[in-house]
């Protein structure tokens, strides 16, 4: 039986990739954020995952508004990054796990979720940056991935309640997978930030703390806010917390917080990193 070894959550601000590229991790601006990853590296060495199920959101690399799925599950043998519009160095490719992807898809549909299925899927900084942070300076990623994209671009977005239930269905898939894989669940993005409009630059440590304080022991508390309320509390891009909520569902019924780091600002974002163990 596959074992779910834990969950890792982190922000995925594009500027983090620039800081890594320049080697700025220990400069005064970046150090408070990157220092939060020492424990992540130790934890990953302890729990030794070989598969990662990654909840993230596309930023206009793979999906455009011509066809925008609410939930999309990758089922490819490999996943590549591509130019996101800024001509930056490309991130390393990922090996997929198509058999597990299809098992996740079959379980989701049996549970009456209706995801898009993607045998080709470009992955952007939302997926790559958490890996660069988790496994710095490796030549190839030590895990295969099952990427799951949640629409955080175009409203209506799925509710937080729906995202948590979707994640719980993914948990049932992982718990019923007969392989011997060690699976880490990853949620990327957030926390509070708003890039657009006259309220650009908005962050909300109070709401972020509420999310961080409840994610392990009472994730349903995060589902009591509507998407509109989450935008009000967390900013237009703060809704990426949906990835965290779905990942928490995929971890399993009970969890224990191992580590957290929270820092304002990274670029325009309240940056957070969290590790949860299954209990």
């Amino acid at each position: 039986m596959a074992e779910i070894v834990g969950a890792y959550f982190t922000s995925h601000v594009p500027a983090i990739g620039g800081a890594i590229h320049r080697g700025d991790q220990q400069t005064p601006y970046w150090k408070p954020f990157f220092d939060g990853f020492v424990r992540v590296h130790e934890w990953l060495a302890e729990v030794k995952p070989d598969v990662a199920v990654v909840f993230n959101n596309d930023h206009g690399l793979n999906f455009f508004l011509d066809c925008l799925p609410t939930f999309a599950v990758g089922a490819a043998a490999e996943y590549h990054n591509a130019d996101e519009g800024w001509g930056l160095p490309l991130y390393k490719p990922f090996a997929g796990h198509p058999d597990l992807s299809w098992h996740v898809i079959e379980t989701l549909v049996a549970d009456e979720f209706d995801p898009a299925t993607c045998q080709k899927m470009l992955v952007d900084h939302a997926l790559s940056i958490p890996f660069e942070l988790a496994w710095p300076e490796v030549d190839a990623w030590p895990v295969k991935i099952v990427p799951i994209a949640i629409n955080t671009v175009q409203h209506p977005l799925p509710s937080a309640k729906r995202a948590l239930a979707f994640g719980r269905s993914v948990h049932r898939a992982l718990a019923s997978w007969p392989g011997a894989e060690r699976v880490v669940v990853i949620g990327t993005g957030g926390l509070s930030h708003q890039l657009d409009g006259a309220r650009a630059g908005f962050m909300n440590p109070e709401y972020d703390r509420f999310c961080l304080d409840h994610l392990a022991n009472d994730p349903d508390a995060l589902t009591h806010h509507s998407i509109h309320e989450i935008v009000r509390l967390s900013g237009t891009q703060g809704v990426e917390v949906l990835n965290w909520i779905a990942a928490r569902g995929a971890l399993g019924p009970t969890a224990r917080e191992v580590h957290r780091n929270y820092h304002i600002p990274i670029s325009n974002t309240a940056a957070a990193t969290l590790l949860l163990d299954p209990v």
Partner: protein
Amino acid sequence: MADPERDPPIPGTTLFDGDAAVKGYALNAMCYSFNDTANRQAFVDDEAAYCAKFALTPAQRQAVADRDVLGMIAAGGNIYYLAKLAGIFGLNVQDVGALQTGRTVAEFKQFLLDQGKELAHG
């Protein structure tokens, strides 16, 4: 469409909903094309012709010409796609934030830093 009774407007915030997605399709399609470096160059070489190719509305064309980010959003632009256009102009998200909030870039960066001052780490 949002129900204003249930979901009162959020100041300074435009939800990118179906109405915006319909209104903004041409502008966002142009911005999406900028994932290709050749298209970025084509825009730089002849901005008017490139905008015409994507059939931008007059309001979208004016907002792009004026580098007016709030105008682009009002014309249906989505920030994830607009960020690719901003990159062509050499603007990062702090520059874009400053443009939208009427601050200088230094003021906007300070505004971000100030929000972290009260935090204890950990």
